[in-house]
């Protein structure tokens, strides 16, 4: 944990107040920051995707993804050597997700951003996202190809739009980063969340193998309704998957053309 003096100034105010909590004309701002309302139609208009790769130079692979208004960077380290006995035959995953101080309407105290990996603080929202992400990635990485090694996945949430597409964006960025890091995958996994009134369903799906790698549901539905929801999610996943593939393949083509030109020159 960083102490106050470590962070560059000594005489800061003891307590900070979010100005919005004193606001007198708050109706519209309140609505915009409230999630549940927009999510009903979000599954149409939130699919504006922007993907870019390899902006973090020291990492093996990295990606920057915008899904709707959610902005996320992900960087991959490894597979690198680890000394735990657990990992002799298979590769370990170590994910660490952090919210940047300005990712939410209310400022998150940056003193909370440590440089440790996520296992220490294990009851935060970040930890929950981590466990979900790991659950979703484990089935789709060829772990046995990287014995006695470990892959670190570091994710920074620059801006969060709404909780419904947060995990989806995280998974998207991680997949792109893994591909950029040239780590062998069974499939390009994509995730999609549906939030219809009070039911939140998230499905992580591998389109080519037609396998669900992870899913989460909170609400109340009968099994048949649930199946319908899952189908809808998977349909969305397919759309997302097409988008990724296009981006990646275009990127590959451009890279090759560049390299050819340099060869000629």
């Amino acid at each position, binding site marked *: 944990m960083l102490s106050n003096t470590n962070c560059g100034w000594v005489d800061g105010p003891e307590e900070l107040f979010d100005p919005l909590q004193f606001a007198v004309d708050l109706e519209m701002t309140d609505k915009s920051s409230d999630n549940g309302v927009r999510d009903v139609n979000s599954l149409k208009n939130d699919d504006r995707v922007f993907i870019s790769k390899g902006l973090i130079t020291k990492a093996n692979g990295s990606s920057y993804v915008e899904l709707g208004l959610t902005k996320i960077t992900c960087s991959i380290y490894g597979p690198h050597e680890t000394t735990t006995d657990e990992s002799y035959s298979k590769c370990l995953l170590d994910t660490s997700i952090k919210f940047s101080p300005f990712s939410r309407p209310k400022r998150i105290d940056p003193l909370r951003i440590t440089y440790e990996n996520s296992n220490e603080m*294990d009851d935060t929202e970040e930890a929950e996202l981590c466990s979900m992400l790991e*659950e979703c990635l484990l089935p789709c990485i060829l772990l046995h190809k990287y014995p006695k090694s470990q892959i670190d996945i570091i994710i920074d949430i620059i801006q969060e739009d709404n909780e419904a597409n947060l995990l989806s964006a995280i998974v998207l960025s991680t997949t792109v980063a893994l591909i950029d890091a040239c780590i062998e995958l069974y499939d390009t996994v994509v995730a999609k969340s549906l939030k219809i009134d009070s039911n939140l369903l998230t499905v992580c799906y591998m389109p080519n193998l037609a396998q*669900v790698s992870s899913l989460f549901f909170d609400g*109340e539905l009968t*099994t048949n309704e*649930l*199946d319908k929801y899952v189908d809808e999610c998977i349909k969305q996943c397919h759309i997302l998957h097409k988008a990724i593939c296009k981006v990646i393949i275009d990127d590959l083509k451009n890279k090759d053309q560049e390299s050819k030109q340099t060869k000629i020159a």
Partner: protein
Amino acid sequence: MPRVPVASEDERKFIVDGIQSDFRLDGRTSRMYRPVLLATDVVNTANGSCLLKLGGTIVMAGVTFEFTRTSQESPNEGRIEATVDGSGCHSLRIFGRQRHLFTKQISRSLNYILNNPKCFDREQLCVVKGHHCWLVHVDISVLRYEGNLYDACSFAMKAALSETKVPSLQVTHDEETSEVTVDVCDDPFQFGLLNVSNLPVFISVSQVSGIHIVDTTLKEDSVTLARITYGVKDNGNIVYMSKDGGGSLDLLNLRSMSKVASDIGPQMNSLLLDKIHLSKAKQPLWGHVNENLLFDDINFV
């Protein structure tokens, strides 16, 4: 998933073959639970408590009340939170560093169903709208772990909450100085009960080589590819779903698993209710907690 070896390759093969011939390590069939033993009201200091054995897995749940102010965003609701603690349990050590993550995950899942308005209505925990409410702690401690902790914890939580005695209060509202005074009435035999009829139970369905089994033991976990934990209400509706086990599933499996869960859920629910009634009836027989009798099977139903 455990971090130290639990079963060798050949043992795993043995287990898988058994499951495929619908004959598991202890003779159960794929849809069978281990015997559930329940004793309620085992701790004097808690408002409600129970000790639950699911085969070799033993958990103890205690419910305690705390008097607080209501939160801003939900003024006429009380608060309730469950915590699962495995620090006292030696057999959880196989998870190594992940042990705390594991218990934290379970408490997270329990909190999801507790905070789901369709499962548990938190308004019954409100004392004075916008002013005071109960903060209910459901503390579950794992005494022994031999598989399927999710289900055991949810059973224990429901049992404990269903026999929880809510202290009754007198609320006097003064009109002119809009002051609210709350005082506990001293009669110990005057209390209310919580309504937990909608509270679901967890049913964890594991997939082992295409076959779906419930209530896996520790060794069966070592051959499990994927497990989905469903929160199932007594009417068979699904209110919670999360996956672990690090494998993947196709849609057919997914469907049949949710069918299995919604079939078994109501059965387990009713079984649990019967047990709760029986143990309530049994309580006078052996009065209040008596530690050296506590783990003796004759006190359970």
